């Protein structure tokens, strides 16, 4: 009798053993490739893209510019030593032959500072990568409102 009581209590508790502390799995969303967030004139904006060095030699990203912002930098999101979220500029990225530079949410991103116009879904941003070997490469980036984490982005235009 006593064993049975403990058994039922055990089963009952195991069946609902939540603690309130939640694990944090990564979102399973396929990343967009080229896209920019909607942004407000005068504020900051963010954009993401991929670029592959197709030259037979290594190349270096010297700077980035855009028609949409007065200042543009490459930044990366990182976690500080004391566990908070930070952001810092990354300069002189070197790309080996066939290496792809990937800018994506939560990692490397394009920092559009002092936006010169509002960016709304459907707009386009032009970004110019200045490379040591390849010269200037223009990238066309559509403005998209993402559904981060949980919805499929795969049908968005690239």
């Amino acid at each position: 009798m006593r064993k049975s009581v403990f058994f039922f209590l055990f089963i009952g508790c195991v069946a609902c053993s939540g603690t309130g502390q939640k694990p944090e799995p990564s979102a399973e969303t396929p990343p967009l490739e080229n896209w920019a967030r909607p942004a407000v004139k005068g504020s900051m904006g963010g954009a993401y893209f991929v670029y592959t060095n197709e030259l037979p030699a290594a190349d270096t990203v010297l700077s980035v510019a855009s028609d949409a912002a007065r200042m543009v930098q490459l930044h990366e999101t990182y976690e500080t030593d004391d566990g908070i979220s930070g952001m810092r500029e990354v300069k002189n990225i070197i790309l080996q032959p066939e290496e792809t530079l990937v800018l994506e949410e939560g990692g490397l991103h394009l920092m559009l500072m002092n936006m010169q116009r509002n960016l709304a879904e459907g707009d386009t941003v032009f970004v110019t990568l200045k490379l040591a070997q390849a010269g200037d490469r223009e990238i066309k980036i559509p403005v998209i409102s993402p559904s981060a984490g949980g919805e499929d982005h795969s049908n968005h235009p690239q």
Partner: protein
Amino acid sequence: MKSLSVFSLLFLFAITACSRVPVLDDLSSPSFNMINQDGEEVVFPDDFKGKYMVLGFIYINCPDVCPMITQNMKNVQSQLGNPDDVQFVAVTFDPERDTPEELKKYKDMFKLDTNFNFLTADTTTMSAFLDSVRVRTQISFTTESDTGEELYFINHSNKIMVLNRKAQLIYEYGGSMTNPNMITEDIKKVL
């Protein structure tokens, strides 16, 4: 037969006792005087008690993590079917730049409804509030624009909280990296 009934009662008791979501922290006091994106004075958490709350922390000049947090909260709201009894609140930790007017523009950019509010406060109040919810911030670096304007960025805690109707913290997640499905499912359990 009698012992079966006892077992059933014990089983139900065990489930009921265990199904209460543990309170991780009591945020029901103190209260903080804040302003929303429409310039309306609100008292946190007093004006929000009686409903569940999904609470996030952002600043507008953050181009990567904070939009992800905001979008995750929006997705949770959408997945829940935009319920009236769950309110969504995002508090800025950059009150000097994130005025109600700027917060309104940010809210409009995300096309958020009336049940989604952005709050700011004077710097003293905001500092005390952030301490109470254990959100840490620090200026990470500053740079100068081509017009001589100083731009600064902020390192910050990255989290989303869920509060119950008494403004007690019951769930806490990584803000930008958590799949909103998980938050939605947790809230459905307690509604």
